[in-house]
């Protein structure tokens, strides 16, 4: 169905949040990544993380010693494309690229904000609690939930004063995005050239989440249901990708991925992709610098020890001197 450039001989591990609501992963950030790997026919195993609901690095994809974290370089999908591991957009013509980029920007911003608002502010806590916090003890889940709501309000600029205005704005943009996407899709199977792209993964994840996870009272869901072709598109691909069946997965706690023991030979790094790190790599120190630092440390340590020895040997004027003085006075008396 899709075009995976070099995924045939590479096994990937996707770590995402747990499945719920009939979806392979209920988190609206993780679902697009899952669908991208599915559309690309990638060979991957899903592992679930239920202990870090407030992290921004989940979902992430591991291959060998390398990892693509969601909070780096635009996200997991962008990194997979950049490193040429999985690029669904590779075979699309250059003419489609501007349209593709602008559509993706609309889905990634307007619809993403709409999901955030609906999930954390509009519909109350049950859905979010079930997705993120149900596996944590209640007090911790509650505190993290409140923290997340606060952060989302800050991100969306929602305050007590402007909440209604902001809500109208968010829903308006979401509606405009649905209309534009509905027009763009028409009767096609995919948005661009009848081939899947990252836009399909992003919108499909959004649509499936809105249709299956949000309650019937959700305004966002009601708005999406008005566009029949978008709903049919989502349901069709859900069946096509066999998303109804629970994915084979493992919990991180019982993962068979083992840590190397101390006597095992060192693993060789794979040639391929890896993320450029945020922290700068350490500069190679010259031998002279290392020697100088070592000598400086020894010098300082020796000084410290000498001071301590001096203090302990000289000590503090003790009572014995006082007693001697008293004894002298007594004798004089």
């Amino acid at each position, binding site marked *: 169905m899709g075009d995976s450039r070099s995924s045939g001989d590479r096994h990937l591990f996707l*770590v995402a949040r747990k499945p719920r609501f009939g979806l392979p992963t209920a988190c609206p950030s993780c679902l697009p990544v899952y669908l991208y790997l599915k559309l690309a026919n990638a060979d991957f195993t899903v*592992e679930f*993380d239920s*202990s*870090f*609901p407030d*992290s921004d*690095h989940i979902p*992430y994809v*591991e291959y*060998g*010693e*390398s*990892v693509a*974290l969601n*909070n*780096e370089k635009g996200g997991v999908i962008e990194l997979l494309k950049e*490193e040429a591991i999985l690029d669904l957009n590779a075979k699309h013509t250059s003419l489609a690229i501007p349209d593709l980029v602008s559509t993706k920007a609309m889905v990634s911003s307007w619809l993403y904000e709409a999901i955030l608002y609906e999930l954390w502010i509009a519909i109350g806590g049950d859905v979010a609690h079930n997705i993120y916090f149900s*596996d*944590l*003890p209640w*007090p*911790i889940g509650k505190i*993290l939930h409140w923290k997340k709501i606060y952060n989302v309000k800050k991100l969306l600029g929602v305050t007590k004063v402007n909440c209604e205005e902001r809500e109208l704005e968010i829903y308006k943009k979401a509606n405009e995005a649905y209309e534009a996407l509905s027009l763009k899709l028409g009767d096609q199977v995919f948005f661009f050239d009848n081939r899947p792209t990252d836009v399909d993964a992003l919108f499909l994840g959004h649509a499936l989440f809105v249709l299956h996870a949000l309650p019937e009272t959700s305004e966002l869901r009601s708005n999406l249901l008005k566009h029949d072709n978008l709903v049919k598109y989502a349901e069709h691909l859900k069946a096509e990708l066999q998303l109804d069946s629970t994915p084979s997965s493992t919990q*991180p*706690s*019982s*993962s*068979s*991925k*083992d*840590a*190397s*023991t*101390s*006597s095992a*030979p*060192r*693993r*060789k*790094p*794979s*040639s*391929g*992709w*890896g*993320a*450029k*790190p*945020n*922290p700068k*790599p350490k500069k190679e120190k010259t031998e002279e610098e290392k020697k100088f630092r070592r000598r400086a440390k*020894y010098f300082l*340590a020796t000084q410290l*020890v000498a001071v*301590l*020895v001096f*203090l*302990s*040997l000289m000590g503090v004027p003790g009572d014995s001197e006082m007693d001697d003085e008293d004894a002298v006075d007594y004798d004089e008396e």
Partner: protein
Amino acid sequence: MANSDPIPRDQAPPSDSEETNGADEISEEGEEEEDTEYEEFEEEEEELDPVRERERLKSIFRRLSTDPVHVRVHDVVIKGNTKTKDAIIEAEISDLFKKPRTVQELVAAASIANARLKQLDVFDSVSITLDAGPAELPGTTNVVIEVVEASNPLTGNVGVFSKPEARSWSLEGSLKLKNLFGHADIWDTSGAFGWDQSLEIGTGVWVPRFKSVPTPLSARAFLLSQDWLKFSSYKERLMGLNFGLLSTNNHDLSYNLTWRTLTDPTRMSSPSIRRQLGHNVLSALKYCYKIDRRDSHLRPKSGYAFSSTSQVSGLWDLRGLKFFRQEFDLRAAMPLGFWNAALNVGLSAGAIFPLGRNFTKLSTSVPDRFFLGGHSSLVCSLGGPSSLLGFQTRGLGPNDMRRVLNLNKDEGSSVQSDCHDFVGGDLAVTAFADVSFDLPLKIFRDAGIHGHAFVCAGNLAKLSEGEIRNFSTERFLKTFRSSAGVGVILPTKFFRVEVNYCHVLKQFENDHGKNGIQFSFSSPL
């Protein structure tokens, strides 16, 4: 008691000579002689009485100390406590004064009572007097306990302490408020900054007894942050409550409810650590049995010590961490008979197992596993396997490779990170032998500075996540790391400093063992 003042002549009793009128001169002379004799007699008697008194007292004390002088405690009177409740003081000493039947037993009981009351740390001074009982009840005594309550209930303290939990020493400051409610309660707030960049803030209360519970109780809320990025690519933040349920000389039972969060701000962690990041709840009951019969815990020369710590977690909620952890530590010291030398040997072992169905396949939490390495003293620390001189903190054992850095995309090259994350072991064993001896110079001996030579060994193994099937005792023994060395120990007023030269005898790939001089600082207490 004899009157030491002589009887004045004008008050001398009339002598018989006053009735004789004829020989006045003779009688007067006789009177004078008699008066003189009488005065001399009285003077002699007065000189003899202090001596006799001293002798009498000496014989009393001799009798009190050697012969069983029977006495019974009639009443215990407590004075000087304006704030402290009588019940608190009585509870500390009530059992001591019921049993004594002799003065010797009573004196011994009084000294124990004195020590117990001083241990409460809420009195400036404690004095116990044995007073005579009521006249109508002979053979009884009243015990009078006079306390002086602390004039300043607020005290501050700054010091260096060794923290077995953090496996390092820390600079700690605390403020204590004593006896706020008159129950000998001590409220404290403390902050500690550790050598390993750990930070702890806590506040708590300690009471010697509460209602029907006869042993001390404590409750503490704490916030602790530890940075393990350099060794294991994660930072740990703990927030929680600790309750001391039972605390005696040998037994300690506590309950700990902690919210633990592991994060990796560098995003360089290995897969094993990455999967451990997140939030967890530790709801654990911990029991520690400790017996220390060594003559000193800083430089033991004879005796033995044993400690056993058991911890079971997962009590409160099914969604918390569930494991069972056990540690043993056995030490022995024996004098060698020359240069004030002594041989200390020790053997420590520990294991952790996850609890639950198919527990052999489950994983244990990295912070709860065992780590070996570091510079803490082999002899002084008593509390499970942790120290292995010559190796860095968390410097050996199971490890996982950190994230690969891809710097040059065009050439397809990548820099292999030479860093590994040490993930700890589920099974740990350490052993050591240490010979301490005096140094030749008298000035060193007088200051307590002495030398030591040591050899130590240790190993870690992973048992969780199915690895227990691959575990082999033979391979575990073959892969033991070891080191040897010599050093000097300087017990100063502020720290106990060990300066050691370590030589690593055996290490394996990725271990962080290093030959050279190492410093170790621990509490001087």
